[in-house]
């Protein structure tokens, strides 16, 4: 494995996203490795708690936007846009989030640096999120004409804050994220690892047969509150969104990337919002 590192120690499984030069952005390869790894981790009786973390300076900057081997994470305009094909990909994506959400053991996201887009989604589907105070959370998908598609936003931070964050695409830091309920706790950067370790070791004092139903009881309430249906709704809206025609005056991220490269395209995507977000 290269894009994912895995080790286990003292009843805890450490899954490290490992593309540090790319800010651990998710591409097809990373997801494929995750898909292979997780069922093994779930069944491993020596692992009671799973920790997700990122190598290098960031947790995860979101989906890889290069357009190279990113079919699973990015719906590009063009060839693969038939509804059936995209539906398959979207269903796979949701199955993955739901699977991590319902993994039969507790999961903890240890977040530092950037935690954006699908990286933020990963931290949301984990049971516990502990972050550095200066970590950056956000979901700027809408700025590229893509639909933010994680129903847990609503359940975690409520309708008002969900709209504020998703419709502006602005980022918030760990302290703010704790305040609005997106994460459990924000701690100074140098205490992050110890804090997560402590939580994981505390949970690992219990046996798997205590932890699994306790988690399931909570998740079953979320199911009763409609989460199951929400996965499907956001899924279908995502498909609809992908089929829309861009307006002439709209910022075309993909055309810009084609012409000027990825870095410029991302900069130009965020530039108009910069002042507004800072003044918020």
């Amino acid at each position: 494995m290269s894009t994912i590192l895995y080790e286990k120690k003292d009843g805890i499984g450490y899954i490290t996203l490992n593309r540090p030069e790319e800010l651990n952005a998710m591409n097809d390869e990373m997801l494929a490795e995750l898909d292979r790894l997780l069922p093994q981790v779930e069944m491993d009786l020596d692992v009671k708690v799973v920790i997700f973390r990122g190598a290098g300076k960031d947790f995860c900057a979101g989906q890889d936007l290069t357009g190279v081997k990113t079919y699973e994470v990015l719906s590009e305009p063009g060839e693969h846009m038939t509804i059936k094909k995209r539906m398959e990909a979207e269903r796979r994506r949701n199955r993955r989030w739901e699977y991590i959400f319902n993994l039969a053991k507790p999961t903890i996201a240890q977040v530092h640096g950037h935690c954006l887009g699908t990286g933020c989604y990963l931290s949301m589907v984990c049971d516990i999120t502990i972050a550095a105070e200066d970590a950056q959370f956000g979901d700027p998908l809408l700025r590229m004409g893509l639909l933010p598609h994680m129903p847990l936003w609503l359940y975690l931070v409520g309708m008002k804050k969900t709209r504020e964050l998703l419709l502006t695409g602005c980022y918030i830091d760990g302290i703010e994220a704790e305040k609005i309920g997106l994460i459990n706790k924000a701690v100074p950067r140098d205490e992050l690892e110890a804090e997560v370790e402590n939580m994981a070791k505390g949970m690992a004092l219990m046996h798997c047969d205590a932890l699994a139903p306790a988690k399931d009881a909570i998740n079953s309430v979320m199911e009763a509150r409609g989460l199951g249906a929400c996965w499907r709704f956001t899924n279908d809206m995502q498909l609809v969104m992908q089929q829309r025609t861009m307006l002439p005056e709209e910022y075309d991220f993909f055309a810009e990337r084609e012409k000027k490269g990825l870095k410029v395209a991302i900069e130009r995507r965020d530039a108009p919002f910069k002042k507004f977000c800072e003044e918020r």
Partner: protein
Amino acid sequence: MKYQNVLLKLDGRIATITLNRPEKLNAINDGMMRDLIKALEKVRKDYESLVVVIKGAGTSFCAGQDLSGEGTDEVMPPNPREKTYLFDMYAQGLKNQNLWQYIFEYPKITVAQVHGYCLGMGLDLAMHCRAVICTEDAVFGDPSVRMGIASANPLWTFRIGLKKTKEMLLTGKYIDGVEAEKIGLVMKAVPADQMEEVMAVETDGFARSSGIGGWDQQGVFWSSWMSIMQLSGMAAARQMTANVNVMSSIQRPHRTLIDRGGYDFYQVREEKGLKAAIEGRDAPFRKHFPEPKPKARK
């Protein structure tokens, strides 16, 4: 009517039900649950009272379900070493959910006045009241996961959100009143010496708002809120948490992974008694999740 386990005081607009087994930290057994429901029924039919305060006698509000194993057939899942029948357990689980729903839907304003320990089923009781007012040093938590039991209370994620719920219920950690106010588990936390004063003001306020249209109209108003809760999945959530709770409590030690770093509460209780079993359950966690302690008072 005489109650063995609670005290009922009807005093004009404010009724007070005091859980009264102070030597057991007001732990809930079958008798207390029955008395509590009976007392609530009595207050419901008393047209003078508009607000019900539920509080605890002695040093604590309520330390949770009675874990002694005696007189707890109705409130506790059976001892996993005894012969149990699935159907009985499901029937009991649903019956208990109906009792909690009764308290949740209660037509008059219920206020839990919490001091000292408020754990497990005691916290379930407080959470099913419309408002919780606590002392700053009160201690909240649900350690049932440490005994291998999944919480049967579906209100958690509605009250404090998904992330905090998981932190509380997957670790069994205890928090104090100040923290409880911060995360939305209680309405307000006040210094212990101001409790009576605050309660007088708050219950008077509640009684005045209940006076608008009388408790009858307030009851109807509350039912409309309850229908929103039902539409938000409350009914299904009750059924599902009851199911998972039963599922977790029918585990037999020899059929679980308890030997891989678990704690066999029932075994220790049998060998060393209840107190040692509770201490042994919580001790290893203190290093990871420091336990707040209520201040000792006369």
